[in-house]
C-alpha cells in the first residue's frame, strides 16, 4: 500500500478521516483519564464500567426512542455511575473484596442489559439496536456528528481534568493530607471517577465494551515506563492513545479483514510491549543489558585480582599461572578465557607460556587499584592453603 495514497486517504477520504479522528479523540481522552485510573489502582474499573453501561444505553433508547449519541451516552453514564456506587457500597460495607464486587457488578449489569436488549428487540417498532455495535463498537460506521459529540464531551472532560489538576494529583497521591488541608476529598473522588466513566462511555461507540478496558489501561501503563512526572505521563498517555487509535483506523481501512476495534487495541498493546522492553531506565531490555555489562566487568576484575593474588605468592611477579587455576578460583568457570582475552587486549596480562598467564606491570597497577577500590588488603597467602582444590602451583592444566 502506497504511503502517499494512505495519507491521501487520511485527509480526503471521509470515512477514514472520520474514523481516524474518532479513534484519536477516544485515544486521547481514555489515555489521559486512564492515567489516573491506573495510578489509583482502578485499572479494571474500565472493564466493569464498560459492561455495566449496557442497560443504561438500552433504557435510554427505550425511554426516548432515540438513538442520538448524546442520549445513549447519557444513559451509559448514569448506568456506569450507579454501578460504581453499588460497587463502592459493596466494598465498603461488606467483607467482599474489590475483585469480587467488580466481577459481580460487571456481569449482573451486563446480563440485565441483555435482558432489556432482547426485550427491546421484540418490540414491534424498535429497529435493531445492534448488540454487535455495543460489544465491538462500530468505528467504521462513525458519522461526523458522532465524532463531534465525542470531541465536545472529551474537551469537557479534559478541561475539568486540567482545571482541577492539582486537586486530583493530591487526591491520587495523599488523600489524607489533602483532607487535612480542607479539600473535600470525597467529592473530588466522585468527580474524578465520573470523568473516567465519561471517557469510557465516549469510547464505547468506537471500540465497544470489551476493548474499552484496554484503552483505559494500556496507554497509561506504557507512558508510565517513560517518565516519572505525572504531567508528562498524562500527556504521553494521551499521545499513545491517539497513536493507537489512528494506526488502528488506518490499518483497518486497508481492508484486509482487520476490524477497527481490535486493531486499535493491538496497536495499544504493542506500544505497551515496546515500552516495557525498551523504555529508558526501566525497560527490561536495558536492564538486561546493564546486568550483563556489570557481570562481565565484575568477572574481569575478579580474574585480574586473582592473578594478582597468585602473583603475590611468588617472588617473581611474572611467573605464569594456568587458566585452570584461575577457573578454580572463580565463582563461575565459564568466561575466564574471555576475560583473559579482553585483559590481554588492554595490555594488562600476557601469555607467558602454553596456557600460562601473567600480569604485566600495567596489570599489576590496575589490580592494585581495584583492590583499593574494593577496600580491602590483598589476601595473605595462607588463605590460599585453606581454600584450594586447585593443584599446588601450576603446571599445565588442559584448557
Amino acid at each position, binding site marked *: 500500500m502506497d504511503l502517499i495514497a494512505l495519507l491521501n486517504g487520511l485527509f480526503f477520504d471521509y470515512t477514514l478521516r472520520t474514523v481516524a479522528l474518532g479513534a484519536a479523540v477516544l485515544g486521547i481522552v481514555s489515555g489521559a483519564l486512564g492515567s489516573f485510573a491506573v495510578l489509583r489502582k482502578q485499572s479494571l474499573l474500565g472493564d466493569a464500567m464498560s459492561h455495566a453501561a449496557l442497560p443504561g444505553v438500552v433504557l435510554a433508547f427505550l425511554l426516548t426512542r432515540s438513538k442520538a449519541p448524546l442520549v445513549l451516552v447519557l444513559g451509559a453514564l448514569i448506568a456506569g455511575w450507579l454501578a460504581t456506587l453499588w460497587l463502592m457500597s*459493596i466494598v465498603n460495607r461488606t467483607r*467482599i473484596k474489590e475483585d469480587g464486587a467488580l466481577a459481580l457488578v460487571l*456481569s449482573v449489569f451486563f446480563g440485565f442489559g441483555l435482558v432489556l436488549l432482547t426485550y427491546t428487540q421484540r418490540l414491534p417498532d424498535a429497529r435493531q439496536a445492534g448488540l454487535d455495535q455495543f460489544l465491538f463498537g462500530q468505528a467504521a460506521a462513525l458519522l461526523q456528528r458522532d465524532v463531534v459529540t465525542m470531541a465536545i464531551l472529551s474537551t469537557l472532560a479534559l478541561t475539568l481534568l486540567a482545571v482541577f489538576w492539582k486537586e486530583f494529583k493530591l487526591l491520587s497521591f495523599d488523600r489524607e493530607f489533602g483532607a487535612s488541608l480542607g479539600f473535600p476529598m470525597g467529592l473530588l473522588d466522585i468527580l474524578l471517577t465520573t470523568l473516567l466513566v465519561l471517557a469510557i462511555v465516549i469510547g464505547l461507540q468506537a471500540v465497544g465494551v470489551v476493548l474499552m478496558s484496554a484503552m483505559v489501561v494500556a496507554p497509561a501503563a506504557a507512558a508510565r515506563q517513560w517518565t516519572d512526572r505525572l504531567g508528562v505521563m498524562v500527556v504521553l498517555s494521551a499521545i499513545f492513545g491517539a497513536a493507537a487509535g489512528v494506526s488502528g483506523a488506518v490499518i483497518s481501512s486497508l481492508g484486509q479483514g482487520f476490524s477497527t476495534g*481490535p486493531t486499535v*487495541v493491538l496497536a495499544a*498493546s504493542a506500544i*505497551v510491549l515496546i515500552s516495557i522492553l525498551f523504555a529508558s531506565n526501566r525497560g527490561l531490555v536495558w536492564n538486561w543489558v546493564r546486568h550483563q555489562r556489570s557481570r562481565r566487568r565484575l568477572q574481569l576484575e575478579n580474574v585480574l585480582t586473582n592473578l594478582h593474588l597468585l602473583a603475590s605468592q611468588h617472588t617473581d611477579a611474572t611467573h605464569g599461572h594456568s587458566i585452570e587455576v584461575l577457573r578454580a578460583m572463580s565463582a563461575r568457570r565459564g568466561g575466564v578465557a574471555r576475560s583473559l582475552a579482553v585483559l590481554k587486549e588492554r595490555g594488562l596480562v600476557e601469555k607467558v607460556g602454553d596456557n600460562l598467564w601473567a600480569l604485566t606491570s600495567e596489570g599489576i597497577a590496575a589490580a592494585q587499584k581495584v583492590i583499593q577500590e574494593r577496600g580491602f588488603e590483598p589476601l595473605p597467602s595462607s588463605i590460599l592453603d585453606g581454600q584450594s582444590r586447585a593443584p599446588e602451583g601450576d603446571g599445565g592444566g588442559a584448557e
Partner: protein
Amino acid sequence: MSGFQIEIQLIALVTAIACALPGAFLVLRRMAMMSDAISHTVLLGIVVGFFVVEDLSSPWLIFGAAVVGVLTVSLVALLQRTRLVKEDAAIGLVFPALFSIAVILITRYAGSVHLDIDAVLIGEIAFAPFDRFAPFGTDIGPRGLYVMGAILLLNLSLILLFYKELKISTFDPGLAATLGFAPGLIHYGLMSVVSVTVVGAFDIVGSILVVALMVAPPISAYLLTDHLPRMLGLSVLFGALSALSGFWLATLLDASIAGSMASMAGLIFAVVFLFAPDRGLVAAARRRERQRWYFAQSMLVIHLLNHEGLPEADRENRIEHLHDHLRWHPGFADRVVRKAEERNWVIRLNGRLALTQPGREHARQAIIR
C-alpha cells in the same frame, strides 16, 4: 411444560452448578476478575483449536481453551513479576490483547464459517435443545446437557478429591507449600478447570454470563456463612435458583435466558446484601443503632465517673451540661439519660445526675479490659 422447556431448565441448572463450584474458590482467592479475563481469552483458544481441527464441536476446542486459560494466568503473572505494572493493570492489559487477536483471526480467516462472536460472548441457551447428542444413532438428549454434565462431574470430583489441598492453599498458601501441596499447581489446576467450564458453557450462556454464574452465587453465600462446605452448598443452591428463576423470567418477558439468569443471580445477591443476618445492610444498620444508644449510655456513665468527686462535678453532672460537653443534642441527651435510668445506671437528684452502684461498676469495667 414442554419437553424443550424441561431440557433447557435442566441444562441451565447443570451449567449454573458447574460454574458455582469453582467460582466459590475464585472468590475466596480474590481471583474473581481472572474469570472475566479468561472468559474473554478462551475465544482465542477456541479459534486456534478450530483452525487445527476444523470442527466446532470437537473436544479439542475445550483442550485449547484450557491451554489459553493457563496462558492468560501465566502472562499476567509474568507481567506482574516485572514490577513495572501493578496487579490489576496486568490483567487489564493481557486479556484485551489476546481477545483482539482472536477477533481479528476470526474476521480475517474464519469469516465463512459460523463462528459467531456474539454467540461466544452471549450464547443462546434457547437453541441448545436443537443440538442433539446422538451416539450410535439414538437421541438421548441435547448435547449441551451432556457436555455441561460431564464438566459438572469433573468439577465436583476434582473438588472432592482435592478438597483438603484447595482449602489449605486458599487460606494459607505458605502452609500449603510447607506441607508439600504445591499451591502453584493447585492454582493452575483451578484456572484450567475454570477455562474448561467457561468453554463448555459458552454456547449455552455465553462467556460473559459465565462470570455472573461463577461469581454471584458464591458471593451471596459468602455473606451468609463462614463455613466452607456450607458456602459451597449455598453457592450451588443460589446458582440453581438463579438458573430456574431466570428461565421463567425470560419466558415471561420473552427475553434472553442467559441474561435473565444473570439478573436473577444479581437479584439474589441484592436480597442477601440487604437482609443477611449479621452481614447484611439492614442488620448492620440495626446493630449500629443499638450500639449508638448503648455506647452513648456508656459514655454517660464514664463521663460521670471521670468527674465524680471532683470540684467541677457539680457543673459537669448537670443534664444541661451534657449538651455542651459531649456535643449531644438536647433531645438525644434526654433519651440517653432516660435509657440509662431504665438500666438503673444513673439517677437524677436535683437536676444533677448521679451514678448508681451498677452504673459505677459498668463505668469501671469499661475503663479496664
